[in-house]
């Protein structure tokens, strides 16, 4: 019975956390974009435009759902739902605090990667199912991009597993003790390239979430809106929300693996607030980057992956193995 109540409260909690994030990250992004560009961003609906997400949501929900004539109906309909599933599901494994975790899996890391790759699949389904050439190109791009970036990402994750000897996310955090020099990003005694490794992981999570400068899938300059060109109303809304959900997941994972999760950087009051602080800082960096850089080309992106990220993560893997053996 107790377990049931616990599960129920976690479900409600996650749903609330997710909903709040999806709505207000959009607001944060628009407000941030505004201020990066010498303007103010949304400010008319509610104080500081805080009710803007509600207005947007209402607008999207009240729109008519149109299925294009030559779309594959089933695929077209299931793509936006499919993209939300892993995003929501993965919250189950994220340890927000030492005891604030819905379910501790001892293979949490693997699960994260396994489900995250469903996102790429749903983009392909959405792109293919729309029956639109722009969407199709975007879908193909997004998939090959995801494939290219999962390699360095996994290599980096293996690195962490080698250091901590565990795939349990909470265990990984626990091993990075309090004080920030114990975080994996600064574990120079395990491999001197750990900060670089963090950068690699960060870039990969940028690419995984399909955000500028790696938004090849939806680059509005070339492919109109990429894989969600044909989606309107809540279909589009789900794609947009999934982007933010993936953003939160990606940043959470980076926080867990490299920045010590809920551990305190100064040794006092460890808890979920540190987790959220670190995660939102990374989210902010994502927003910041988005409104600073232009988009890369597809070749530029693959070049980056194969010429820089993969060699670096491989070298790092070797170094870690060496360090662990020697020291």
């Amino acid at each position, binding site marked *: 019975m107790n377990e049931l109540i616990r599960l129920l409260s976690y479900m409600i909690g996650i749903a609330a956390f997710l909903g709040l994030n999806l709505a207000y990250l959009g607001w944060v992004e628009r407000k941030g*974009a505004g201020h*990066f*560009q*010498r*303007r103010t961003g949304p400010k008319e609906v509610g104080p500081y435009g805080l009710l803007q997400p509600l207005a947007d949501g209402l607008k999207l929900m009240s729109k008519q759902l149109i299925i294009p004539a030559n779309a594959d109906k089933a695929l077209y309909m299931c793509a936006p739902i499919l993209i939300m599933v892993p995003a929501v599901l993965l919250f189950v494994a994220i340890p927000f605090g030492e005891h604030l975790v819905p379910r501790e899996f001892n293979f949490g890391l693997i699960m994260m990667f396994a489900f995250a790759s469903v996102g790429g699949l749903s983009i392909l389904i959405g792109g293919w199912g729309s029956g639109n*050439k*722009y969407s199709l*190109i975007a879908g193909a791009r997004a998939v090959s991009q995801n494939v290219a970036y999962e390699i360095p990402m996994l290599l980096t994750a293996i690195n962490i597993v080698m250091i901590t000897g565990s795939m349990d996310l909470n265990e990984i955090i626990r091993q990075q003790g309090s004080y920030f020099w114990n975080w994996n990003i600064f574990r120079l005694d395990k491999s001197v390239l750990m900060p670089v490794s963090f950068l690699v992981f960060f870039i990969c999570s940028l690419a995984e979430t399909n955000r*500028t*400068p790696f*938004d090849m899938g939806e*680059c*509005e*300059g*070339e492919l*109109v809106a990429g894989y969600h060109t044909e989606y309107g109303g809540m279909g589009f809304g789900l794609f947009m929300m999934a982007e933010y959900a993936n953003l939160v997941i990606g940043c959470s994972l980076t926080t867990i693996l490299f920045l010590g999760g809920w551990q305190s950087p100064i040794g006092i009051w460890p808890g979920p607030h540190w987790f959220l602080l670190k995660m939102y800082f990374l989210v902010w960096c994502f927003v910041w980057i988005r*409104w*600073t*850089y*232009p*988009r*890369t*080309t*597809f*070749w*530029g992106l693959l070049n980056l992956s194969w010429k820089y990220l993969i060699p670096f993560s491989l070298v790092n893997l070797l170094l870690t193995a060496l360090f662990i053996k020697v020291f």
Partner: protein
Amino acid sequence: MSSLAQSHLRETFELNIGPQHPATHGVLRIKVVMDGEYIDRAEPILGYIHRMHEKMGENRTWNQFWPNMGRLDYLSAIAYNHCYAGLVERAMEIVVPERAEYIRVITAELNRIQSHLLGFGAYIMDLGGFTPLMYAMDEREQILDLLESVTGSRLTYCYFRFGGVYNDIDDDFITGTRAFIKRFRPQIPIYHKLVTGNVILMDRLIGVGPVSAEMCRKYGATGPVLRGSGVNYDIRRNEPYSVYPELDFDIPVYKECDSMARYMVRMDEMVQSCRIIEQALDKLPEGPVMAEKVPKALKPPKGDFHFAVEAARGTFSMRTVSDGTNTSYRMRLRSPTYSNVSLFEEASRGMLLSDALAFLGSLDPVIPEMDR
């Protein structure tokens, strides 16, 4: 033969870029035959905003044709004003007062900066960076305010008149312009830091869309496209009009022939325009701004006349055939974008889609001017 050998049967598909597409800033349509991500053939299709300005020139009096000049290239309308004024003044042999000529140059150069600023911002937006556009817009607003205070309009200027300009400039405008230049100069290095030096942008522009000087010649491409191909050709220098010979400025030329070169030409031209404006303000003589005795009902002599100016996008020239009446017998507008974009079909062959759009943006097309 292995089944992995490349098949000669290529599967291509057609893709429409435009007429309503975020990559084209107007209603340009490009019918692209794609082979995967590569372009097999890209055919620009024009005419979505065709308004037959040339016919309008035939059934309006010379004075009545003025407002059309603001509606061709809405971004550098003053250069177009300049061309029309020069054309009819050449036909009528009207001598323009010196002050008016200086005012013409000052406003035309302000207009050029404004046009390049928007070109810069919109180009980076094409490449996915939205922020530089807003910074460029901020500076551009300052210019629009200045030009509004003297011409009365913000975009579709109808400011020049045969024999001078419509309004004299006042001290507020002069101090405002000087203040603007003072404010604008330090902005350019910031743009270069934020955008030009960015490794992502360099990766997208360097070596993309090569257009050789010979190709420019064959297609009649002018302006930053030609100067980005290493040809030092600028009507302001090579075919001097107005008071440009009295002013000291450089023509930026880049030899790389790629999109980056064209982009850099525009950026450097803004600096040169600042120089021109400063000198013109220093040299600004007193006197009238309209020639005396310009008849209200103009009747240029018979014959055909030609005049060319350097607009923001290249050589804009007009040819008119006058039959001695109060309307033109034939008015021909040669717009730079028309020639510049005509080389797109040949140059874009075999390009990646994203490169082709970076290339198209570097040609900086303004569609109403192209369609006329």
